[in-house]
């Protein structure tokens, strides 16, 4: 269904305004407030909700493309069942009754015959973390008796870095930059507010998406200085805003951090009182970084030694200085980077102090019991990778990514049989692409919920059409102390259904109704909201304003070290990490580089002379989401790689040319974007491409070898030993090539209604 928007003359007065939350960054989280304009049951246009504290009426491009998201001609509108072999993309339309019948049969058969651990549940960023969707899905999996919560994001994105951060400086969450009070702001390999730029400076779990321009700009207007550490000159650094731009070689950030520590310790620029009162291992760290001189780091990072020294001095001597790091550094050598940055913050006395990196505490947590105890002891012992330190540290609450791949591909220790995927596209986002696709193809039954078909769909046996957030009923969300309600704007398109309702329905059909509110969605929502002390009816009454809870006492109090360090050994910051040492890992941050780089593979330089990495997310897409929306796609029609003009000239490339990017592992194609604000030795791509856009006449493209997916270029085998974080760095060569043909297998397919 396509809606023509001839509302030019139609005044907004004829439209009904529905306050709700944006679907852009996720459909399950506390997002920006939106006012949706509805006429005759159709969502016509949107604007920001001025009363929502996160965005105060502002909205980013993704949020503003909401109507194209809902009325996307690619929307799935009926359940589909695969016909023919995996990967051929042939589906047949079936009814919900048939679809849920097949699914229930597969689930109960798997659970009863093979054991509940054979059921995997994979949830993506799309359905968000912590919120209602997350909790219901965990509860469903646990009620079935399976311990194998399987998501790729905790291995790629924010999770691994958070883990190291907490191992080093403790705290309930990441210590976030206190932009409101900072005089110096370091944006370290971030998109610089290009994730979802309307979010008014509130950092949540995922710092890139909940980004921050207005707060940063306010502070810069008051004289604060901005330092951007990034191989490219990001838009935040444009218009004269960057006090320093440090064009670092991608993947070498840990060497910069270690050299900064070297300078700070060597020149005595650290906070002596804080270090002696609250830190452990100061001397061991000092000895360890003794050789990490700025000159050493210069050879690795490409940043001049004097620049490194002066940056270290500036950061250490500015009392109110905050660091924001990309939430997804994605490194084989993650440990060094993800522990060295919190060490820098702690050593310099910037931890939990105004203008530094601080901890926030929500006024309440919404939720209900996720029924962990329903997973039997025997089943819990079978959680994949349960013996790893990473999984043990999380109480065995999820399965370890490399072990899931091994189990599916090699059947060791067993081969899980069934996977449910909610709002995730692992074939596009996870690595290595070929291993992930092989693993998924070994499943006996794969069911996927999503709003459109995506790269993963061709591996699915059953694809269920999810309603967008704008089509789903009430969902309360909390941020800090603000409670907001995501409301239904329009009826679901076609046969689309709310994932929450479908999950409740499934639970009831599987005889678990007693644990799932007998399928009553509203009863579930009331339970979810209960910890806030606010009733659903009261929240509904609040209109577009939402409701503010009383902040937790002491929420604004800083320097709460005893409380936040209490889970650290001896209650002290770990400059030398006792737990890591005990588990047989390196207790200190050691720079090891990436699988292919100037340090580890100098021999590859002649064949692959350029460094390659990719941007995490930008203003016009959300990973593999939304690239098919014309208003967003018009700004960048094709997958691109950015290179410096001299690099382009040396390769005989002009802007807009198609180029083959080859690494020792694979090849991709993209269009050349020439940009002076790029390192000459670096090529930057973007992940999540593949979708076509029929309205603009753009075809689907393959995400496998030779297609448009940078993940095929990386070494997916050499992982961070603890968190299994994988690299997004490699070496490449460029060669001009003809425009690629349109899609072969792999990317989404139009459903073929061969049956009905």
């Amino acid at each position, binding site marked *: 269904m396509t809606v023509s*928007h001839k509302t030019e003359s139609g005044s907004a007065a004829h439209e009904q305004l529905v306050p709700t939350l944006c679907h852009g960054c996720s459909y399950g989280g506390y997002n920006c407030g939106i006012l949706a304009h509805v006429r005759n049951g159709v969502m*016509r*246009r949107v604007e920001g909700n001025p009363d929502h504290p996160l965005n105060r*009426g502002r909205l*980013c491009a993704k949020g503003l493309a909401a109507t194209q998201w809902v009325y996307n001609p690619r929307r799935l509108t009926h359940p589909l069942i695969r016909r023919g072999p995996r990967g051929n993309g042939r589906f047949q339309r079936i009814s919900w009754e048939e679809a849920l019948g097949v699914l229930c049969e597969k689930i109960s058969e798997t659970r009863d015959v093979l054991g509940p651990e054979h059921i995997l549940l994979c949830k993506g960023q799309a359905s968000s973390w912590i919120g209602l969707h997350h909790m219901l899905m965990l509860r469903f999996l646990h009620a079935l008796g399976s311990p194998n919560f399987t998501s790729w994001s905790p291995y790629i994105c924010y999770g691994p870095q958070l883990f190291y951060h907490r191992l080093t400086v403790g705290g309930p969450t990441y210590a976030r930059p206190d932009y409101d009070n900072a005089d110096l702001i370091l944006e370290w390999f971030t998109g610089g507010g290009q994730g979802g730029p309307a979010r008014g400076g509130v950092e949540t779990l995922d710092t890139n998406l909940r980004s921050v321009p207005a707060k940063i700009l306010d502070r810069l207007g008051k004289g604060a200085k901005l330092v951007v550490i990034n191989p490219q000159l990001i838009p935040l650094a444009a218009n004269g805003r960057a006090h320093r731009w440090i064009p670092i070689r991608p993947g070498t950030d840990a060497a910069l951090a270690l050299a900064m520590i070297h300078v700070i310790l060597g020149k005595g620029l650290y906070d002596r009182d804080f270090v002696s009162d609250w830190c452990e291992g100061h001397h061991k760290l000092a000895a360890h970084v003794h050789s990490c001189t700025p000159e050493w780091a210069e050879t690795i990072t490409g940043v001049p030694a004097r620049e490194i020294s002066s940056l270290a001095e500036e950061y250490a001597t500015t009392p109110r200085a905050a660091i924001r790091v990309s939430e997804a550094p994605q490194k084989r050598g993650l440990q060094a980077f993800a522990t060295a940055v919190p060490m820098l913050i702690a050593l310099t006395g910037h931890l939990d102090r105004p203008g530094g990196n601080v901890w926030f505490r929500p006024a309440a947590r919404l939720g209900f019991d996720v029924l962990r105890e329903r997973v039997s002891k025997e089943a819990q012992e079978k959680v994949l990778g349960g013996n790893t330190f990473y999984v043990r540290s999380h109480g065995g609450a999820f399965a370890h990514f490399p072990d899931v791949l091994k189990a599916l591909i090699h059947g060791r220790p067993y081969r899980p049989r069934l996977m449910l995927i909610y709002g995730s596209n692992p074939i596009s986002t996870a690595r290595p692409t070929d291993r992930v696709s092989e693993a998924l193809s070994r499943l006996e039954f794969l069911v996927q919920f999503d709003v459109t078909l995506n790269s993963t769909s061709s591996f699915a046996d059953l694809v269920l059409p999810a309603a967008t957030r704008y089509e789903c009923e009430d969902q309360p969300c909390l941020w800090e102390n603000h409670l907001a309600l995501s409301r239904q704007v329009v009826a679901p398109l076609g046969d689309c259904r709310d994932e929450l309702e479908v999950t409740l329905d499934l639970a009831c059909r599987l005889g678990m109704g007693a644990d799932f509110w007998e399928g009553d969605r509203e009863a579930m929502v009331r339970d979810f909201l209960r910890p806030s002390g606010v009733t659903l009816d009261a929240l509904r009454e609040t209109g577009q304003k939402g409701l503010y809870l009383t902040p937790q006492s002491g929420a604004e109090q800083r320097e709460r070290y005893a409380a936040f360090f209490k889970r650290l050994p001896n209650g002290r910051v770990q400059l030398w990490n006792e737990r890591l040492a005990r588990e047989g890992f390196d207790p200190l941050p050691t720079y090891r580089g990436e699988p292919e780089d100037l340090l580890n593979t100098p021999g590859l330089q002649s064949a692959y002379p350029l460094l390659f990495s990719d941007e995490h997310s930008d203003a016009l897409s959300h990973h593999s989401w939304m690239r098919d929306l014309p208003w967003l796609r018009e700004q960048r029609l094709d997958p691109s790689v950015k290179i410096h003009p001299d690099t382009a000239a040396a390769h005989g490339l002009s802007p807009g040319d198609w180029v083959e990017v080859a690494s020792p592992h694979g090849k991709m194609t993209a269009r050349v974007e020439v940009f*002076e*604000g790029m390192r000459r030795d670096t090529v930057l791509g973007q992940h999540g491409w593949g979708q076509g856009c029929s309205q603009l006449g753009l075809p689907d493209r393959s995400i496998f070898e030779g297609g448009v997916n940078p993940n095929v270029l990386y070494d997916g085998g050499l992982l961070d030993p603890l968190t299994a974080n994988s690299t997004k760095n490699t070496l490449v060569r460029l060669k001009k090539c003809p425009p690629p043909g349109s899609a072969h297998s792999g990317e989404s397919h139009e459903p073929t209604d061969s049956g009905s």
Partner: protein
Amino acid sequence: MKLGLLVDLSRCIGCFACVVGCKNWHGLPAGSPGRVRLVDLAVGAYPGVRRWILPIPCMQCEHPPCVAVCRFSACLRGVDGIVRVDSDRCVGCALCTLACPYGARVMRPDTQKADACDFCRDRLEEGRAPLCVEVCPGECLIFGDLDDPESNIRKRIEATGARALMRSYRTRPRVYYAGLERLGASSPDAIDILEKTITGWIPQSSPATGGA
């Protein structure tokens, strides 16, 4: 009353919210160039390069070339001073798109008629600011009455020394830019490069890839 717009360059982060928000509010079809675009400019050479990003909407000229060239009275400037297109009168000759030195007048691919920013007339009638002004995440757009010495826009223009782009064309724009002096200071030919980039822009249904 003389409505105008101030773009504070220090707060534009090139996020495309104005571009996409406008298409959303006015229901522009896929493939439309849109009523506002971003110019993304690199001045100087790596590593001393400076990047400048600025939105280019209709400049709401007091002497609008689009109105001067229109043979059908479809391009007009109302008593409120706002330049707009009367799509009932427009025959799609596209002369106005050639006349506008800012490249701010474009053709709609669905109607084959001229299209341009009119400061969201529908919103002004309800006493609200244009959509781009309200949604801008960087809060870089300030809208108001240029005649009112007490208005925020007037005060900000005076305080920042904001001025219009390409004044040599003498169209007397009502869109001002704050921060051009910093752009000019980044290189002797920076303003010249910027103006050439703006005038050299050819309206097309498929915008070129961003970058330099």
